[in-house]
């Protein structure tokens, strides 16, 4: 798909919970679908989070900011796909489950870790109002902004291999040409 700044920028959805699992991101009953687009209406349908309404809160979102161990549980790549077909290509969290994190980069999407303090800072400053994120892939920075709030720029890092996958648009082509 080829990564651009736009791919990883946009309106931010804050999910204030640890351990959001892939059954919550996309329930197993939808795993009988054999196209990614069919998953679109069901993203986060079973999320256990007070005040969260998927129909209201997901539309027009491009980025998720959440807490710890996002994507734990089932290995289903349907979780990143359900995000992708909803236009969400970037999840920022304190940390991720191994398989979910790998699936994101394998699809050319990004799962980026920030420190617990930085995540807390984002929640306290930006989670109450509409917040947008501008990602600069060259400078490796996130800039968060919200009306009436001072914007915040944070540096981030991903490994060279993760970057290779994002730039290649995923693991299949890279692996087939390399091994």
């Amino acid at each position, binding site marked *: 798909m080829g990564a651009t700044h736009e791919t990883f920028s946009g309106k931010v959805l804050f999910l204030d919970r640890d351990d959001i699992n892939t*059954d919550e991101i996309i329930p197993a009953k939808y795993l009988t679908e*054999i196209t990614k687009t069919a998953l679109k209406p069901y993203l986060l349908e079973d999320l256990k989070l007070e005040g969260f309404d998927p129909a209201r809160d997901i539309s027009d979102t491009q980025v998720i900011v959440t807490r710890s161990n996002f994507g734990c549980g089932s*290995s289903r790549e349907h979780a990143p796909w359900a995000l992708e077909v909803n236009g969400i290509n970037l999840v920022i969290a304190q940390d991720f489950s191994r398989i979910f994190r790998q699936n994101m980069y394998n699809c050319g999407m990004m799962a980026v870790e920030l420190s617990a303090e930085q995540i807390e800072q984002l929640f306290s400053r930006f989670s109450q109002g509409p917040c947008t994120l501008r990602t600069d892939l060259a400078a490796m920075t996130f800039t968060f902004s919200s009306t009436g709030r001072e914007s915040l720029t944070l540096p981030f890092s991903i490994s060279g291999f993760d970057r290779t996958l994002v730039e290649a648009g995923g693991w*299949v082509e890279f*692996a087939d040409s390399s091994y």
Partner: protein
Amino acid sequence: MGKTSAQKIFAAHLIDTQGEDISILSLDRVFCHEITTPIAINDLIERGKDRVFDADKIKAVIDHVTPAKDSKTAEQGKIMRDWARRQGIRDFFDIGENGVCHALFPEKGFVRPGFTVIMGDSHTCTHGAFCAFAAGVGTTDLEVGILKGVCSFKTPETLKITVSGTLRKGVYAKDVILAIIARLGVNGATNRVIEFTGEVIDSFSMEERMTLCNMAIEAGGTSGICYPDMTTVDYLWEFIKDDYTDKEAALADYIRWKADDDAQYADTVTIDVSDLVPVSTFGYKPDQVRPIDEFDSTPVDQVYIGSCTNGRIEDLRAAAAVLKGGKIADGVRGVLSPATPDVYRQAMKEGLIEIFMDAGFCITNPTCGACLGMSNGVLASGEVCASTTNRNFNGRMGKGGMVHLMSPASAAATALTGVLTSAPQDKGE
């Protein structure tokens, strides 16, 4: 410096590195099922790469929804069938021969000590019971595994868990792993391999070791691993007897995958299980665990016995021993899904199926089914299930349902009373 089991397996399979900490490994086994594989197959076709790296190293099964329940699952099965035939995959298990992958593939002798195994299924860690490095992956990793026989892994750290003491009657491998997950937390082993060792593990059968390793992922672990010993050799003997002069020779070969005494661990934990009692999960995370006797009277609507965690013959024996001569409580539905055809057949021979049926259980064919809310026992909103499966996530067995994870013996005891009930124990010790 000595090596852990995972480090030895990585070193023996390393074909490339990427940056400081990414290892590209060659794969001995790529396992496939019909939920995560069809999209990989279709993507390979779209890319003009409809081929496999080695048809003999790929093993495939239709297990999650079988027989098909609707047109969509029928289509998933068809894609698998057509692909297996087209690619010459001989070990493909369909209706009549199929069972839950992590119970079926070990039964067929497909996993050996020192192997690398991937599957598009998070409970692939089960196969670490054979001292293999076995990890769940997503569909893209699976696709590359099918195509090239390689997979990338962040070089994992190893967490060594020593399980000591003696288990009390009524306490099983399931209670042990739930207690371990409660101790570690659902994130406690992320990016780590868990080596399970100690006198309790040494005394465990292969089935008990599989129950243990199966749930390593519920603490975030990449793979669970048990060291190879004579129990491993005995289990595998019918498949390997032509390769070795005797069992001692097989063990001498396999023991090289055991961690060295001076191996370096990221962390070590010792758990004494002598005082452990039957436990169950509460809430929606598998690290929320407490003794069943400490629950207030908690009525259940359904009891489910089966799955890749606890659907093997020893599990059915343990549950049947509790059920024998009894009846399920009024208003409770009992569902038994033997994990494989061989388990089903053996349970019939031993009279276990009759015990379950006399108690009022419905017996389903081997399938993952209700464990993930797909079929054969999905919960209605507000319903409660005592289950021998591995996940109590919100909505896991059906939207709005509550799942309590426990051992087969405790699930059977719960079926008889209709409220969460411990497996029969020795009292007053």
